[in-house]
């Protein structure tokens, strides 16, 4: 079972991904994260208009195994949330990089994206974690 590491997003060591579309940063969790969580059963999203700082816990995800906090990798204002996840949290398992985006931030400091890993570095980081 191999996991997906698309190149069009950047990754946090805490297993979130971020995609900058030229205006907004879209945030979700990685394939590695959804695989570790297993079937997700509940998601609590931030409120529209929340002003968040990089590293803040803004989303709670619950699976049959565990509850996990998702932190935002970038600072800014939350301008969209994916309400579809509230009724169909299984999207996180089936399409973590696509339909299962969590929220969009109007970023206040784009340089924060530079601190994130590219696909190759994140994949290597996960391989190291698995060995440990």
């Amino acid at each position: 079972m191999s996991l997906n590491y698309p190149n069009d997003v950047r990754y946090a060591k805490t297993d979130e991904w971020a995609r900058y579309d030229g205006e907004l940063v879209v945030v979700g969790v990685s394939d590695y994260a959804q695989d570790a969580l297993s079937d997700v059963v509940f998601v609590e999203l931030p409120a529209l208009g929340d002003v968040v700082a990089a590293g803040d816990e803004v989303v709670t995800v619950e699976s049959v195994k565990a509850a996990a906090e998702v932190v935002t990798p970038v600072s800014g204002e939350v301008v969209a949330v994916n309400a579809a996840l509230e009724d169909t949290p299984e999207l996180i398992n089936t399409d973590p990089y696509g339909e299962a985006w969590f929220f969009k931030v109007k970023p206040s400091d784009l340089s924060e994206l530079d601190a994130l890993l590219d696909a190759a570095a994140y994949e290597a980081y996960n391989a190291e974690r698995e060995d440990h």
Partner: protein
Amino acid sequence: MADDFIYELSSPGRVGVALPDSDVPETPIPADTLRPELPLPELSEVDVVRHYVRLSTKNYGVDTGFYPLGSCTMKYNPKINEQTARLPGFTNIHPLQDPVTVQGAMQLLYEMQDMLAEISGLDAVTLQPSAGAQGEFTGVLIMRKAQIARGQGHRDKILIPDSAHGTNPASTAMSGLHVVEIASDADGNVDIEQLKAHLDDTVVGLMITNPSTLGLFDQNIVEVCRLVHEAGGLVYGDGANLNAIMGIVRPGDLGIDVMHFNLHKTFSTPHGGGGPGSGPVGVVAELAPFLPAPVVGLSAEGEYEWVWPAQSIGRVRSFHGNFGVIVRAYTYIRMHGAVGLRRVSEDAVLNANYMQARLLELGDYPVPHGDRYCMHEFVAQGKIAGAEGIHTLDIAKRLIDFDYHPPTIYFPLIVPEALMIEPTETESKETLDGFIAALTQIADEARSDPELLHTAPHHAPTRRLDEVRAARQPILAKTSA
């Protein structure tokens, strides 16, 4: 085969009890409270008895088999506990009676406070909280009030290691304080550097479980307590794992200021559906004035009396806690005595280490901290070498086919695919060997016939339950007849 619901056994007009004709006028039930859609079943007495007795035979408990549920201490509950709890002097009294008329019960509570203080090395104890989690909540409220009394009311953070039980952050949040998570180091101890980085004058205290949920004794515990005290904080010790250290180490001597006891774990009272629980809290002298009121005192005239601590946080439970449970735990302590309690812990630790050593020797299941002696439990992983696609859940489900209660799974969260095994002291070597043999056979099956695991259990009253659907659509009531 699954049993019918009692609704499905219903037959219109069938009754279990014949009532005499009414000799008073009937009063109709108000129409707006009638619920004709309620599918109340109609059965005879024998139908009802058979239905529930049959279901009860499908229960699994420590009285029917091995129950190595890590972190829960599912030890055997001696039956003498039930006899003492049923003594008429305990069952025929009421908590509002004049203390003069219930001196025996109050003596038991007083001595229980005393014995728990001695076991923990702390100075004062409340027996009110009715579970470990409520004990935590009580303890955190006490810590906060103590900080206010020290003139440190601005402190609003509790540090909690990432290996903690989920109730620790929950109790903290319930009391209005903020949780800051501290990482564990590679040996499973609290990461001292991380701890130092977070210790400032906003910290109310630290909540630590020692032995930890990894089944490890924190080798830096004295240093951890010293650092927290130095920063003006208090240390809460989650006593859920006391079963490993009774009569060997006293939390109070290590520097713990507050702790709870899970009587329903360490002191052999029923839990896991058999409850209720009981989570007394012990504190050092400085915190005694804040204990929930009342506690039991002994007057100069030798009379037991209710005492209201001077700056009590108030009541956390009606009356005096789950009294019947306290009687059982008291019995357990008195039956063992000091030497016996130490033996309990020694045997609990020996049993766990025997199982850990056997698993390491057999090599099918990784044990991340297997290089250290464990305490009364240890955490293995359901990552069987050479078995692709097998998860801890599959192993746990397959264990049911061998007539065992599965260990705790996926906890602690910091160990992927965790399989947390706590045998307790009451199990024989034969029982432990039988369980290891089952794990070994399951590892072989995982490699040769993974489907057998994916579709387990095969011999239980129900097959694999759909946990995902149950969590996503938690509809618990039968909706139509």
